[in-house]
Structures are given as C-alpha cells and as structure tokens.
C-alpha cells in the first residue's frame, strides 16, 4: 500500500508547493525556476507512481515507458537546482548555462518520449517482484550533464560560502549544499538493490524539497537547530525520568519480598532520590553538551564568562589579566587576536594593550576618531563592516584606517565603568572566516562587559597598591617604598648594591624663575631620564624634594659608573630639547656608593651622608633653608650661623672665598679710625659680613663667570643688594641692617651713569648711611687687591691712586682718608688676608 501512498503524498505536496511558490511576490526569476523544479519533482513522482501501478498490473511495456519518462526528470532536477542557485546568487555571468539547461531538459523529454530506448532498453522482472530496467547508451549523456551541473553548482556555492559575511545568506548556502547532497543520495538509492521497490528516494527528495524551500524562503521563520536541540533535550529528560521510575519501581518490587514493606518503600525512595540527584547533575552536563553541539559559540562564551568571574576573585597583576583574558577571548570567541585599548590619563588617547605576544607595534586611537566618538556616545559595540556604512564615518583619516588595517580590527566593544568608557576591546577577524553575526556581537558584548569589570577592578587594585609606594608627581617610587622595606627584587644582604644619589642643582632657582609648574615638569622628565638610563631591575626612588636614589641590586662599581655615564648622556640630550628653563641647562649632582652586607636603612643613610658631603650646592641649599626656617620661625641666629650664612654665598668660588670676613675686618678698622664705638660697631660687623647675602639668589653661572658680564647678567648681578636687603628685612635680628646692605653699591656723587654706576636707588652724599659708606670702601678695597678670573690683583699704589681719584665721587672722602690712615699700618692687609 505504501508503494502508492508515498509517491501520491509527495506528488500532492509538490503540486501544492508549486502553487504556493507561484504566489510569492518578488524574486521573479527565482520563483519561476523554483516552480519548474517542483514541477519536475512532481513529474518524477507521477512517473514513479505509474511504474508502481503498472508493476502491480504486470504490464512491462508500460513500466518501461514510465521508467523511460522518469529519466529526464533526474538531469532536470540538477539543472533546475543550478538555475535556482544562479537566480539566488543573482549572477548573470552563467545565464547562458541556464539557457542551455532549459534546452537540454527539452531535448531529454523529447528523446524520452520519442526514443525512450536510448535511455532504457527493457525491464526484467526480478524474483522480488520488482521490474529492473536495463540502461541504453544515452543514459551516460544524462550522467555527464548531471555531473557538469552538479560540479558548477557546488563550485559556485563553495566560492560564495567563502566570500559571504552575511550570516543568513551564508546559512542558506549551507542548506543549499545539503540539498544537493540529498538529491545525490536520493538518486543513488535507486541503484542500491535493497532499496528498490521502497520509496526511499521519494522520502529523500521530499526532505530535500522542504529543506530547499526552507533555505530559500523561510530561513528566518524557523530555527532548525533550536527545534532539534529542544527535542533532544526533551527526549533525554523523558528517558531519564522513565529510567529513574523503572529503577525505583524495580527496587521496590524486588525488596518487597525481603524487607518489611514500609522499609522497602523508604529504601526505594532513597534509590529514586539518589537517581534524581545523579540525573540532575547529568542533565546539566547534557545540556552543556547539547549546547556545545548545537550552539557551540554561545556555549563557549558562557563558559568563558564563568572563567572571567572566577578570575575576578583572584589577586592578579593587570598584565596577567590581559594575557589571560586574551587567551580566553581568542579561544571562546574564535578570533585570531584581541586588542585592548585603555584610555590614557590625559583623556585624549587610548593606548594599546594586546593579547598578542609580542605586541605588534604601539598604536593609539585618538578620541576625535569618529569610531571612538561613536563608541563613547552610544556605548555599544561597533561592527566595523556595519559602521563603515554610516556616513558620519566618512571623516576617517588615512592613518586611522591604517591602524585598523594593521591590526585587522573588525569590531569594537566599549569597556564601561560608571557609565563611562575607559577602554576598548577590539576583535580581529575570526578563525576559518566565520562571520560576525548579530548574535555573536551580543555575546561578545556580554563578554566585554565581564572583561570591563575584571580589568577595572584589577586596575583599581593596582593603583591603590602603587599609590602607597609611588610618587604621584614623578611616577618614581617614593621614600616609603624604602622605609616600609618593600621588596627590592634580587636584593640580598650579602650582595653588593650600587646606589646612585642625585639632586638637581639649584632647583629652587628653577621654581622661582620659571614657576612651580615648570619645576614639576623638570622633575617628571628627569625621572624619565633616569628611568631610561638604568637597568630593568634597578629602582628609581624620589628620596626628597629634588633628590633621587637609584638602587641597583647586584651592581658592581663599574656597572654603577656605566649607568651614571648613561644618565649624564641622556641628561645632555634632554637638556638640548627641554623648553622649561628657557635654554638654561639643568644639571644634576651625582654621587655613587656601593655596599654589601648592609641593611637597607644603613644603605640609605650612607647615601644621604655621601650626598651631603659631596655636594656643595646642597650645603648652600641647607643654609638657605636654615635662613628661611629662621625667617619663618622668627628664631634668633647665632653668630656662628651668621658667619655660615655669609660663607654660603662664597661656596664654590675660590676667588671670593673669605671676602665677607675681610670686608668686615677692613670696615671695622676704618670705623675705628672714624671714631665709631658701641652698637654701631656691632651693627657694622654684622652688616659687613652679610653685605653680599643677596648673592644667594644669583645663579652661579653669573657669579662664577670667567669674563666680563653681559648686559643681562649685569642686570641680574645688580639685584643682589636689593635681594640681600629683602632677606635681612624679614629677620628681626637683622632688619636694621637691611638698609645698610641695600645701598653698599651706591656712589657718593649718586651718578647713575658713571662707571661703575650707582645702584639700586641712586642715593648720594649723606643720604647714604655712614656704615654703608664704610662698607662700600672696604668692599671696593678688597675687590681691588684680590685676583679675579678676568684680571690679576691691583697693586697697592695703583689702589691708592684710584681711591684718590674717586674720593668724593664713588667714595666718601672722609672714609677714604680713614682708609689711607689705616693703610699706614703695615699689618692692615697681611693680618687679615
């Protein structure tokens, strides 16, 4: 009975489908060729039905006739499948092959009708009651046609499959390929004797036809994998439930005889419960298995996200997090690579973090990049191939496109925290050319959200950890790192440790002259200079304001020296391009120390001491600091401190060494001759020794210059009496001396244009305090009889001559006379110099 029913059913189905397809709107060519295809199938079914009818009525001639009529249907199916594929692909280049196909179908039908013997010459009745045909010579021709159209169809589909990115169409191509194989199986089943007489080919063809219809028209309506998965899951659940019940029942029946009945019930229930527990465990395993089978992508991503959640509970370094996420991401998302861009501290650029090892090259994405703007505004993933369709992206620059090209970036996922994008996860092309489907993008976005949480937490943890030991201004380690005995990698007490101690010469001057911002930038860049000069394992520590220590575990003295040379070289290069000090060179005082078997505290102490001893400028700063502290605290300075202060202005200058003391001595002698006594003498003592205190503020390049000063330098130098007065005015003990010091470069005649000119105020005559006039003479006298870099000492006779000439002009005549009187004493000069 089924011999009739199956072909009859399939015939009806084909005719209905033909009618349905002809009612489809659009796809004109496609629908037409589809309708032809179903007609061909219907014809094939009809012939098969006739074969069966006449086989039963034992009319071999009619069986042969309908067999012969069946033959054209086979090549027709392949040709029409090819035409459908061609119409589906909208490729006009193979139209000629379609046309030829129609001609061939017509020719085969004609030949079958008029010369059927060319295809099938006769039928013989087999023992099983089936009529078996014997083939004619032209059957080979149909085989050739079938092979050609089959090959071209598969070739075209395969080519398309490799180029297509649109997932729906790609999936359709997938089904079309399956359909072709189903027809091949259907035809092959006719040549397997065991299947002859059974409607296997019809069933194959029916499935194939339904699948073809599904592939072309209804792909979006029905999710086949979902249906299969649901059914399998349901089947599994049902089987397991039934199994559990049967086992429980068996256990109950078997135990009924040996155990007391209520105990048998409990015992069976326990077995059932155990089975259910096992079943629940197995069920979740099977569900994962089914998911991996039918939705491998989604299942892998869920597993990956679980892995990320697990990682977030661990304490991990950010570098390790990137590495691990990268590996998980590549595996679960099936991408060739993944890159992470994090927003930089200045907010303008994203810097690269990559899963690749090694990182290809550094890259950045500017925040003005339209893709980045879009990503920040919309805060959702961007698929490049979709984004490039947007006209807003027409403003992309060549170099921006090159970054995307170089890294083969195909999609962008924002890493968001507190509603702000702090980074981007970029995925490259997928392995084996898998497409970026909408579903995949959703899953990857979910994955990116988990990555964002993990990365953000790790960064925050890292920042908190670093903040404790990192100096925020320079990024170098801070003193706490040493004090808290943070681990110095590779440091062991019996190993030698190289130590480089540096401080910036005259850093206060940089701050005062160019502002604190410039000072901060200088410190920050000097840190970079040092970091770039040391070895990987060395640590750069900001020890104090402008003091740095480089700790070098295991470094012998020669290594320390090498690093020092590197620092000096890099500093020189940096000085050439830095713009913070208006061309003025920034220099470092560098000391080195090597120790072994000493504690970290001892090392630091030794280094500090060495620095203090070695660095004259440091002393100078200490003295300035002392003065400042005194000024701040209004403390009284001791005599010794005053002397130390005065000496500080002469540090580093052999030519002026002892000048203040000498001026004080000459001034006191002159005052004696002038008859001064008591408090005036005391005041003169202090004022004379401190008269050049203002030179603390003058850069040493000016103070120690070998040669005449230029105009700007001279203007700077002329500031020292004013600066000195300002310093002294702030110290209660010395405030009366401020005026004395301020005017020690005035001229008695007040001439501002004379050589040397009067400065700073142009006072003259008695307006200039007497003590000042005395210091002026003593100061000039000592300067004349001392050597200078640009001239030798002037002879005493010549000095007298100058003073005679300048009396009443540069100098007070009375004070000059007192000086001459002093000079009569032979020990006046020798005893004091």
């Amino acid at each position, binding site marked *: 009975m089924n011999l009739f029913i199956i072909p009859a059913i399939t015939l009806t189905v084909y005719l209905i489908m033909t009618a349905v397809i002809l009612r489809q709107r659009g796809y004109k060519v496609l629908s037409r060729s589809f309708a032809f295809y179903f007609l061909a199938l219907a014809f094939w079914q009809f012939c098969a039905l006739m074969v069966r009818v006449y086989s039963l009525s034992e009319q071999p001639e009619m069986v042969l006739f309908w067999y012969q009529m069946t033959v054209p249907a086979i090549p027709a199916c392949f040709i029409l499948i090819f035409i459908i594929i061609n119409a589906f692909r909208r490729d006009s*280049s193979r139209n000629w092959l379609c046309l030829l196909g129609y001609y061939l179908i017509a020719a085969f039908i004609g030949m079958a009708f008029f010369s059927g013997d060319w295809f099938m010459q006769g039928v013989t009745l087999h023992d099983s009651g089936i009529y078996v045909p014997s083939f004619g010579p032209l059957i080979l021709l149909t085989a050739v046609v079938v092979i050609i159209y089959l090959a071209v169809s598969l070739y075209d589909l395969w080519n*398309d499959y490799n180029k297509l*990115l649109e997932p729906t169409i790609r999936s359709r191509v997938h089904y079309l390929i399956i359909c072709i194989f189903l027809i091949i199986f259907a035809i092959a089943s006719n040549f397997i004797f065991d299947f002859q007489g059974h409607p296997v080919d019809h069933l194959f063809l029916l499935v194939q036809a339904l699948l073809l219809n599904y592939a072309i028209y209804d792909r979006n309506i029905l999710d086949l994998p979902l249906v299969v998965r649901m059914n399998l899951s349901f089947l599994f659940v049902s089987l397991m439930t039934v199994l559990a019940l049967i086992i429980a029942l068996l256990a109950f029946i078997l135990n009924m005889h040996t155990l007391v009945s209520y105990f048998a019930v409990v015992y069976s229930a326990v077995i059932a419960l155990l089975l259910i527990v096992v079943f629940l465990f197995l069920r979740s395993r099977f569900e994962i298995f089914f998911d991996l089978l039918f939705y491998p992508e989604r299942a892998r991503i869920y597993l990956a996200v679980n892995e990320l959640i697990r990682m977030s509970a661990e304490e991990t370094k950010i570098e390790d997090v990137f590495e691990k996420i990268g590996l998980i991401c590549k595996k679960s998302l099936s991408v060739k690579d993944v890159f992470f861009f994090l927003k930089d501290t200045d907010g303008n650029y994203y810097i690269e973090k990559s899963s690749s090892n090694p990182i290809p090259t550094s890259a950045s994405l500017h925040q003005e990049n339209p893709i980045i703007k879009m990503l920040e505004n919309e805060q959702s993933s961007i698929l490049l*191939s979709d984004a490039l369709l*947007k006209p807003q992206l027409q403003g992309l620059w*060549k170099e921006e496109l090159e970054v995307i090209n170089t890294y083969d970036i195909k999609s962008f996922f924002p890493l968001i925290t507190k509603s702000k994008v702090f980074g981007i996860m970029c995925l490259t092309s997928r392995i084996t050319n898998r497409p970026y489907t909408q579903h995949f993008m959703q899953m990857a976005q979910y994955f990116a959200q988990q990555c964002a949480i993990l990365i953000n937490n790790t960064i925050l943890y890292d920042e908190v950890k670093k903040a404790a030991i990192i100096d925020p201004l320079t990024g170098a380690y801070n003193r706490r790192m040493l004090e808290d005995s943070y681990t110095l990698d590779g440091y062991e007490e019996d190993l030698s440790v190289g130590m480089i101690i540096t401080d910036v010469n005259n850093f206060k001057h940089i701050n005062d002259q160019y502002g604190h911002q410039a000072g901060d930038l200088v410190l920050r860049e000097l840190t970079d200079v040092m970091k770039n000069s040391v070895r990987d394992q060395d640590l750069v520590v900001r020890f104090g304001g402008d003091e740095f220590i480089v700790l070098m575990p295991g470094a012998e003295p020669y290594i320390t020296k090498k690093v020092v040379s590197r620092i000096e070289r890099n500093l020189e290069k940096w000085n050439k391009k830095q713009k913070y000090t208006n061309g003025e060179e920034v220099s470092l005082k560098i000391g080195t120390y090597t120790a072994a078997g000493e504690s970290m505290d001892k090392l630091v102490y030794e280094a500090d001491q060495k620095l203090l001893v070695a660095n004259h400028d440091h002393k100078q700063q200490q003295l300035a600091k002392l003065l400042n502290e005194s000024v701040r605290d209004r403390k009284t300075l001791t005599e010794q401190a005053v002397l130390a202060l005065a000496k500080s202005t002469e540090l580093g200058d052999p030519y002026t060494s002892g000048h203040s003391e000498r001026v004080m001595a000459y001034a006191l002698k002159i005052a004696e001759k002038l008859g001064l006594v008591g408090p005036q003498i005391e005041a003169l003592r202090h004022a004379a020794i401190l008269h050049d205190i203002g030179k603390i503020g003058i850069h040493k390049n000016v103070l120690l210059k070998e040669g005449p000063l230029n105009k700007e330098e001279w203007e700077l130098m002329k500031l020292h009496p004013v600066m000195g007065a300002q310093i002294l005015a702030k110290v209660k003990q010395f405030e009366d001396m401020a005026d004395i010091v301020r005017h020690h470069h005035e001229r008695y005649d007040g001439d501002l244009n004379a050589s040397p000119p009067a400065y700073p105020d142009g006072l003259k005559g008695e307006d200039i305090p007497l003590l000042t006039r005395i210091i002026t003479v003593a100061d000039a006298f000592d300067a004349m009889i001392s050597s200078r870099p640009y001239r030798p000492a002037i002879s005493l006779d010549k000095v007298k001559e100058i003073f005679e000439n300048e009396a009443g002009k540069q100098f007070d005549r009375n004070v000059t006379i007192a000086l001459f009187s002093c000079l009569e004493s032979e020990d006046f000069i020798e005893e004091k110099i």
Partner: protein
Amino acid sequence: MELTARKLLQEGRPNDIYPLYCGFLDLTVEEIMDIQKRLLKEQITMLEKSEIGQAILPGTWPRNIEDFKNKIPLTTYDDYASFLSKKNEDALPDKPHCWVRTSGRSGYNEVKWMPYTKRYWSKAAHNAFASMIIGSSKNKGEFLLEQGDKILYALAPRPYTSGEIMVYGMLHHFPFQFLPEPEEAEKMDFFERIEKGFSLSLDEGLDIFYGLASILLAVGKQFSGGSNTGKRNMLSMLKRPKALSRLLKGYIRSKKNKRELLPCDIWDPKILGMAGMDCDIFRDKVKYYWGKNPLEGYGLTEGGIAAIQTWARDGMVFFPDMNFLEFISFEEHLKLKADPTYKPDTLLLDQVQEGEVYELIISNFYGSPLVRYRVGDLIKIVALQDEKWGIKMPHMRFFSRADDLIDIAGFTRLTENIIWKAIEKSEVSYNDWVVRKETAEEKTFVHFYIDSSSVMDKELAEGLIHRKLCELDSDYAQLEQMVGLKPVKVTYLEEGVFQRYLQERIAEGADIAHLKPPRLNPSLAVMEKLQNRSG
C-alpha cells in the same frame, strides 16, 4: 578595508549598498561640517609637509578654519602648473594613483593635469556610483541596479576624468557592463565608439546612459524615426533577431503614440544622467527623446564628482567628503574681479543663503593637491533643504562660468545659460552661434553671430531673441522698460562656418575642449577666423 558595492554583493549584503553610498543624504548640515572640517585637518597635515604646500604657504600651516581662510591664499591652476604640468610626484602631498587631464585656457596651460590619490579616485567613483543609485531609483532607500547592467560608453576615455572615474572607477565599485568594452572602446574615436555602443545596445539592451547633455540630445536626434541612417540600420538588423525585435517593438510603440521613432521607444534605461553647463537648456528635449527626466550631476577634473541631483530633480547637493567647500558671495566675487589683489571673505556650506549666487572654492581631500582653488564656476543656492525628501543640506544649481557674463549697463548680467535658452526658445533657427558684448557709438550691444540654414529677417530675429530674453530675465526686461534699450543685434554668418572651423581645429591637433569657439565673448582672433570663413 574599502567597502564597495561589488564587495557587499559578494558578501551577500545588497541591502547595505544604499546606506553606504547614499547615507550622506540623511546627514544634517552640522554633521556635514564635522566631516568637512575633519577631512580638511587631515589634508592640511599632508599639504604642510609637501613641496606644493610649502610653495603656497611656507612654514607651519594653520589648524583652525578661520586661520586657514585668512592665511592660505586663493589659488588657480597657475599656482600649481609648475608642479602638475611636469607631473612632479615628489612635490605632492600623497602618492598619486592616476593623472587625469582636462582642458585649460586656449594658448596657456591648454592641458591641465591633475593627480588623483587612490582615496580621491575611489571617493570620486564612490560618489559617481551614488549618483547611479539615485538616478535608478524612484524613492529613498531603493537599490535597483543589477550586476551586468549595460552602460553606453559615451564619454571621453581616460586620461580624461570622465573615462577614469565614470568607467574604471565605476567598475571598481560595481560590475557594470560597458558597451563597447572599455579596452575596445578606447581604441575608437568618439563617434565610432557611440555608434558601436548603440549597435551593441540594440542587441543587449541599455540600462544606463550618461554623458554631456549635448551628447544625449544629439543621440536622441539621430535615433529619431526620420533619419536615413535609421532606415539603413533597420535593414541590417534582419541578421540580428534581438535587435530587430527591439526595433520592431519601438516602431510599434511609436506608431501607437502617433509620432516618430524615439530612443525611448527602443530603450527604457534605468538611468539617464547628464552633466555640463547646458543641462537646463536641453533638459526638456532630452526628456522628450528619452522619455525620462535626466539626472544632473556636477563634476570637475579638479574636484571629482562634487554634487548630484536627488529624486526631486531640482537643485544638486554637494557630496560632503570630496572637497572642502567655500563660497565667495557675488558682491565679493565682483570686487575680486575688479581687483585681483582683493582678499574676499568666504562662507562655508552652513553659512550660504537661499537665492544667492556664489563663486565656488574647493580644497581637495585625501591628499590630492588643490587648496582654496578657484574652480571658476558660479553656483546659485536654490534651497537650504528639501523637506519632501528629508534632505537637510543646501541645494545648488550651476549658474555660470565666472568669466562668462555679459554685463549690460549694470542692469543685468546675462549668463551663457540664459542666452542659450533665449535663442533656443525663440523661433530663430541656428546650426551654431556665438555672442559678444560690443560697443559702438556709446551703445552696448549683445551681438549674436549665427550660422543657420534658414536665414530670417535680422530685425525679426533680433526682436524674437529680445522678447525671449525679457521673458527669461526680469532684470533684462527692465532695460527696455526703464531705459528703452533693446541691445540685441544679429549677424548671420555663412552656413557651415562653424563646421569648417571645427575641422580646421581638428587638423591643427587642438585639444578636444578647444575645437569649437567659446560661445560667449570669443576673442577677436576667433571672430576674424569665423568671419573670414564666411567669405
């Protein structure tokens, strides 16, 4: 990385083709300005480093728009000639992909060479293909082109821009089929190419036909039923069944409509595209012959495919990503004309006003070399947006060449376009014509020199043209009303004089753009030649 329609088709994404090419029509002016300014920034960084850029402005280039407008001088081809005429590639901001040519001024820079970088070339072709999408569709969002659509090769071959962009550039974006194939077509002269193309399109059909408006019209005329050539062709068609069937269908259609055989009876192209300053004049006739309202585009060798009409077929919109656009107001333009050292203020696309005429200034994007370049065209902003089609950017129409204006007594400035329309719509028949502004006895004349096979009374002809000018230009009409001036003067030249001039110029090997005399204000030398040939 570059997305093309060809690639999208391969990837099975035909629905993405429209947004890729025509998505810009949904941009707001602000978004367009963002794109313009961003691409200009990139262009400045490239120009700044190039020899050509340093020749225009030595040193560091400004980064903001105001400084750019103030510091970079307006340029003409002469500013680039020393680099471009020698094809000095080292001096360019970026490596050129190809060199295209156009015609310069007669006697000076007759051939203007222009380098296109790969991105500029592809963007020009991208925009050309966008025009095809708009031209073939009736509604926003439609994409009706198909692979293998047939295009008639009726363009100047490369290295002319039309051949480079509208043929090779177009093929880069979409698998069209040109009739004849480009390699074959380029071995033929222009007329051979058109003839062969039409012959092939009789067999294979014609989906797209674009070219200069005058070509569309000439071809239409040639195919009209009455020509002997047509009849001869019909006989030879017997060997070609497809062509014959097409002709027969056309013949029946024409008979059904009781008129001569027209191209629209034979073909129904998806796109009819035209360019050139005479579009407005020939639009109606082209429509009559081809049965379709042609799509107008605005392209130039120095600026790629710059603007296109949309579905309303009224005014063109600029492509935002081809060139940086600046506009000199007409008043400023006149000041600049009077004093070439004058520094006119320029406006940007978001600052133009409806109804105003502007001189167009462009700066190429994507590393092509021209910056603040005076194209030499005046355009008129006809609308600031098109509400019906939801296009929120200014629409423009070609107004005139900047040099081609005849100023009459300060009352009106006649453009070539207006004059052409006037003579076309008057009943004065002509084969060809030129017009000159002349002064005699303290009177200004608009002097028409006409070559015609049917000469009419001169006074009658003057009256007819004058009336049409009054109809077309209200300012001109006031001339008569207020000062009683009727400045039209007509002189008939000997018949065929323009044809003879053309042949002589071909024999001299003149450039294609200089074969015919300029229609407006031809030089005295040209006039002498024409009048001598009139005998």
